């Protein structure tokens, strides 16, 4: 087992400091020009679930977790290109405890953003989802990006990763994460970037995470483009991951892509917090190479065919190799408000335990303010899992748009699977969206 510890630093204190900084920057901008305070979008999603579980020994628990997801986005603060974003959720159990304790919650993001009117220059400070070059993390910190008139640009970021161990053992993520991306972009033709990322922490082999990488987007000719991404893990001394693809888009209705990707467990999972990605649950000496292809073709208006295939080769015989092939057909109707679809997937593998088939069908129907949906999925396993070789789940929903900003809907879910002989779940969903101005946000 790989053990990691954190220092005595209070992650919460930096988080609060960043939030305080955000708010202190935000308030003057908000009140500088009361006549044009901000364009505000508020969204509340409330979910109340009902389900029952029977455990070994006959104990039967009834669960009713109530979740509230709240997001608030204020743009054009004081008539200036500043914006403030918040997203978070909380849970209260109205029945038996459904998780760790009877309450839970998290702040997903809370940050101030500046978007310069020219050159896509931007800056963020606070807690936000960072996706730039080799980085994909939620951090408490800062981010800045600038593109110069000649197309050269730079992005820099740094902060403390907001990561949570699933275990109650005090193990947490790195103490600091920072890096950047240097790039050149010629609009419509090419973008090439070089990235660096370092996360300080006591990761696998007691080392920090240190990544070097490169990325490419190149419109080679006409509708043909190439993309590539390479990441080298300096600390582990090997390639963490690489992915190369060709994509062809001759018309707006035809889109095809194929490529190759490869990753090593040691290089990619070195800083994992989830024990599912670490020994003894995974052998970090394994490497995966994959060839993939995917097609999306609207062959007649409203009818779209999708095909996909991914062949996976493992260096180790356990788990061995596998291939996943998919086919799907979709029909959109009612002025694109509704969709119906059928799909099938076939996973063949060198070990029987990894083989299964999946079939799915769904349809939506939205007459006026009503919305009805039905979604059915079944999977057939080649080898029994917990003495059963299949599972089926059917989800039916009904919703009604009470007001332009308020919708009430509910799900009923039926499941039979290796886990459940027969299970019913209910869900009530209340969605409230409020905006002070026009403009699209989804």
């Amino acid at each position, binding site marked *: 087992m790989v053990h990691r510890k954190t220092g005595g630093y209070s992650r919460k204190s930096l988080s609060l400091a960043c939030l305080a900084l955000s708010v202190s920057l935000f308030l003057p901008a908000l009140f500088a020009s009361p006549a044009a305070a901000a364009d505000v979008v508020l969204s509340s999603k409330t979910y109340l679930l009902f389900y029952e579980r029977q455990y070994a020994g006959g104990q039967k628990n009834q669960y009713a977790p109530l979740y509230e997801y709240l997001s608030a986005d204020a743009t054009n603060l004081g008539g200036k290109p500043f914006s403030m974003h918040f997203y978070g959720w909380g849970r209260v159990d109205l029945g038996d405890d459904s998780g760790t304790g009877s309450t839970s919650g998290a702040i997903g993001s809370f940050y101030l953003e500046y978007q310069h009117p020219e050159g896509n*220059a931007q800056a963020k400070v606070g807690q936000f989802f960072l996706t730039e070059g080799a980085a994909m993390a939620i951090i408490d910190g800062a981010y800045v990006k600038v593109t110069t008139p000649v197309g050269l640009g730079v992005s820099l970021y740094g902060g403390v990763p907001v990561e949570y161990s699933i275990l109650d053992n005090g193990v947490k993520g790195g103490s600091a994460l920072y890096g950047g991306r240097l790039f050149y972009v010629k609009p419509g033709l090419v973008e090439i970037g070089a990235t660096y990322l370092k996360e300080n922490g006591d990761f696998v082999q007691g080392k920090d995470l240190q990544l070097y990488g490169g990325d490419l987007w190149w419109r080679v000719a006409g509708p043909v483009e190439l993309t590539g991404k390479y990441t080298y893990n300096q600390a582990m001394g090997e390639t963490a991951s690489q992915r190369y693809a060709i994509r062809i888009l001759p018309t707006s209705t035809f889109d095809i892509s194929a490529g190759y990707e490869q990753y090593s467990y040691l290089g990619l999972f070195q800083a994992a917090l989830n024990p599912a*990605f670490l020994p003894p649950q995974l052998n970090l000496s394994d490497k995966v190479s994959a060839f993939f292809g995917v097609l999306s073709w609207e062959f007649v208006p409203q009818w779209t065919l999708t095909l996909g295939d991914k062949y996976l080769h493992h260096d180790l015989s356990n788990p061995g190799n596998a291939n996943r092939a998919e086919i799907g057909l979709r029909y959109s109707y009612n002025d694109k408000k509704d969709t119906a679809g059928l799909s099938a997937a076939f996973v063949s593998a060198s070990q029987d335990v990894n083989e299964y088939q999946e079939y799915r069908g769904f349809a939506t129907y939205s007459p006026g303010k009503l919305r009805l949906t039905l979604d059915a999925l079944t999977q057939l396993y080649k080898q029994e899992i917990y003495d059963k070789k299949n599972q089926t789940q059917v989800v039916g929903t009904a919703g009604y748009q009470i007001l332009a900003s308020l919708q009430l809907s509910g799900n009923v879910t039926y499941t039979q699977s290796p886990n459940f002989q027969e299970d019913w779940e209910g869900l009530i969903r209340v969605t409230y969206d409020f905006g002070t101005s026009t403009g699209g946000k989804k």
Partner: protein
Amino acid sequence: MRRASAVKILGAALLALLFGCSAVSKTPSVPPKHPEDLPAGQANCLECHKDVSTGAMKPYADFVHTRVFVNSHGTYARSGLNLCSSCHNPAFCQTCHAGKEELKPNVKMGDRPERMAPHRGDYTITHQIDGRLDPGYCYRCHGNKSDTKCKQCHR
């Protein structure tokens, strides 16, 4: 140690911003919010836009939300998230890319079966296979950003 690192990083970012503002490209930025209301259902940029996006510096055709795009959306987001942000608020990304989460995306979006929400069905069963075969795919969301329910088995 950590506080010192954070201060250095913040200082570097602010310095970069100050220097950068004097040499910023004059190309108009992508607006922080799409100026018009978007229709119900999946939007298609090509219905109005034909050229290259000012935000991502790539043709709008790249961003039609086909299955090909959805499978590789990270490639585009990692070099130009501001274009995504013009139509999607940050909460949209974090429906899946969450730091801490208890509800599966397909539960939250049970009334949107047309969306590509992972983990449909009783995924505690199927993830045993998918996770063995392609853990790198799982790692994007579950490596450092975890669901407390994982610990029922992964300890």
